[in-house]
């Protein structure tokens, strides 16, 4: 009975298939059963076997997706859908790359390759999301063979919180480091004045560990004779008046006293609640000591300068009196007894008179030198240099005519100096140019040019010049390069010039070669317009 055999074989086959299906269902190898019925094939999902796993996936706090090898999403759990802010039904069937930040696409491709090669891999990259822009995530990829299909299951862990925590930790470490490295003593107090934080410098200033002590006990500050308490500082800062560099001092138990600058700002929380106050104590003990010392020295110096000037003034003034009498009486002897003295006696008396007059001139110049430093500076002054040069040249009229001097003066500025000073400058410089002329008739050129904030003026001559060796020394007091007979002078003129320009914070110098004339330069401020 071939037909019967066939039927029995067929039934055996079906039985084997049924047994296989039941075994698969039992082992969880089948998710659904397709049954051919009168309405065609129908899929029956088998809930029982994988219900537990499914529930786990659906409810876990991390995202998970299954991808095919091309990266197409076969399955997403609700968490991943929530992370990318797209409904799960839309996520399924879409390309995973769609949810990656552009810069992460290539990294993901590499991860897929690694998963394909090694079965498992992981890496960090960014998801692209509508609201935040991107979410840093860690992806763990595992290659899974599912029935006849190879797919990749991906666990997506949100790293935002972890990164936030790490950042907070780093900031906290940085804050501690800054606080400890701060050169100034920084103290944080709560609204009751208890010390919550302090820098290393604050600990050193206090001389002890001061955490949780009361500020007033650790830092007994006195400002303008009154205690500067934590309460006072808090009150002031709370009222929107932060302290900035208030000078105070603090007595240490060992008797030392520190001078401090106190600054303080309130510490507000968010929302606005006063957490306390940050107080900075800058130790200026050394600075103050140095400043006081400097001030003392400067006062001493001023006093000593003043004494010296007074002495020089009195000395030169008082010396003039007997000198004047010496000169006049010498002349009187000459006048009264000239004929009785004879020619020799007359000459001797003349030497005495000349000497007295030279000394008189010297003292006069010395007084002028002292007064050059004394003349009032506070009065705003201006002087037209053209006018001054004209006046000074008029006083030299006799000499210039006698010598046949040629004098050119370019256009000169109006300067912000006292006229008397400018007169003295030109008088000395033009006087020298005339005095130290060489064989030729004197040629003098006076000029000026604007410089950086200052004018540069000059008096140039064709005289005997000055060897470079002596160019600095000529500005010293009583410095003369020539014997008394050839060129008269007290050696004070250029010292006066230097003193005057220095009063205005300016300079005077000379460019010259012996025998080739001299060019004296000086700077002075222009008149304020």
């Amino acid at each position, binding site marked *: 009975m071939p037909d019967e055999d066939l039927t029995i074989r067929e039934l055996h086959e079906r039985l084997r298939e049924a047994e296989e299906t039941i075994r698969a269902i039992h082992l969880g190898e089948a998710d659904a059963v397709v049954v051919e019925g009168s309405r065609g094939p129908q899929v029956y999902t088998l809930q029982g076997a994988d219900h537990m796993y499914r529930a786990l996936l659906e409810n876990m706090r991390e995202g998970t997706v299954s991808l095919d090898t091309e990266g197409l999403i076969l399955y997403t759990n609700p968490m991943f859908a929530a992370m990318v802010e797209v409904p799960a039904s839309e996520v399924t069937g879409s390309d995973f790359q769609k949810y990656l930040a552009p810069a992460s696409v290539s990294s993901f491709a590499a991860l897929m390759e690694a998963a394909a090669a090694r079965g498992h891999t992981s890496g960090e990259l960014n998801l692209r999301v509508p609201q935040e822009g991107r979410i840093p995530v860690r992806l763990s990829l595992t290659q899974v063979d599912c029935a006849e299909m190879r797919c990749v299951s991906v666990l997506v862990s949100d790293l935002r919180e972890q990164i936030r925590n790490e950042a907070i930790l780093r900031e906290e470490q940085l804050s501690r480091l800054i606080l400890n490295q701060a050169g100034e003593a920084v103290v944080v107090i709560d609204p009751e004045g208890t010390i919550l934080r302090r820098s290393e410098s604050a600990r050193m200033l206090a001389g002890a560990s001061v955490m949780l002590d009361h500020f007033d006990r650790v830092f007994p500050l006195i400002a303008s004779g009154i205690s500067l308490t934590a309460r006072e500082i808090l009150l002031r800062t709370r009222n929107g008046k932060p302290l900035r560099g208030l000078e105070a001092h603090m007595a240490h138990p060992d008797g030392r006293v520190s001078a401090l600058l106190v600054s303080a700002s309130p510490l507000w929380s968010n929302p606005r609640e006063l957490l306390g106050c940050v107080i900075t104590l800058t130790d200026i003990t050394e600075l103050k000591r140095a400043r006081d010392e400097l001030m003392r020295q400067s006062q001493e110096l001023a006093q000593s300068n003043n004494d010296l000037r007074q002495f020089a003034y009195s000395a030169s003034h008082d010396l003039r009196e007997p000198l004047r009498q010496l*000169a*006049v009486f010498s002349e009187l002897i000459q006048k009264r007894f000239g004929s009785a003295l004879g020619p020799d006696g007359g000459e001797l008396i003349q030497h005495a008179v000349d000497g007295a007059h030279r000394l008189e001139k010297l003292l006069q110049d010395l007084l002028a030198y002292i007064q050059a430093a004394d003349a009032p500076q506070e009065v705003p002054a201006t002087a037209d240099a053209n006018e001054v040069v004209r006046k000074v040249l008029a006083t030299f009229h006799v000499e210039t005519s006698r010598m046949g001097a040629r004098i050119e003066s370019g256009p000169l500025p109006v300067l912000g100096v006292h006229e008397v000073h400018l007169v003295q400058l030109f008088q000395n410089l033009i006087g020298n140019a005339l005095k130290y002329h060489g064989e030729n008739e004197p040629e003098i050129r006076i000029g000026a040019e604007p410089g950086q904030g200052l004018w540069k003026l000059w008096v140039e001559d064709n005289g005997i010049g000055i060897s470079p060796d002596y160019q600095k020394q000529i500005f010293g007091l009583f410095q003369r390069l020539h014997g008394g007979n050839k060129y008269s002078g007290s050696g004070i003129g250029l010292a006066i010039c230097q003193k005057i320009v220095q009063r205005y914070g300016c300079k005077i110098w000379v460019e010259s070669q012996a025998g080739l004339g001299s060019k004296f330069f000086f700077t002075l401020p222009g008149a304020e317009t």
Partner: protein
Amino acid sequence: MEHGSKALTLLLVEDSAADVYLVREALRWEGLVVELQVAEDGEAATQILDRAESEPPDLALVDLNIPRKTGIEVLEQIRRSPRCKAIPVIVISSSDSAADRQRAFAAGAVEYFHKPSTLDEFLSLGRLVRALCPEDPRERSQQRVTQQSRGSDDNG
């Protein structure tokens, strides 16, 4: 040289003997016949001025820098004295500072003579005295009337 019937009376307040000599020399050189009363300090000047109430000098020369009083104080004393307030006063000084000149004129000096260091200049003091104090007694009284009226103007 024609002299008046009576010598000029001059008060010189000066502590330096050398300068007293030079003043005398200047007056002599100018040919003035002078009865010179010398006060070497401020106190002496006061005594002379007190005595002078009956017969005041024709002119006073006052050095600024004298012991026991300043020349300015002596000058002020002269200006306060009812009998002497009109006499011309020449301040003589070794200082040529503008401040000293100003002080002297403010206190009532009619001239300020800076003691010079050449003889010729010093001798010019004689001319100054002659100009302020003519020798002719009639001119003298005339000048005194003028001075007095000027003095009372100042006080008013």
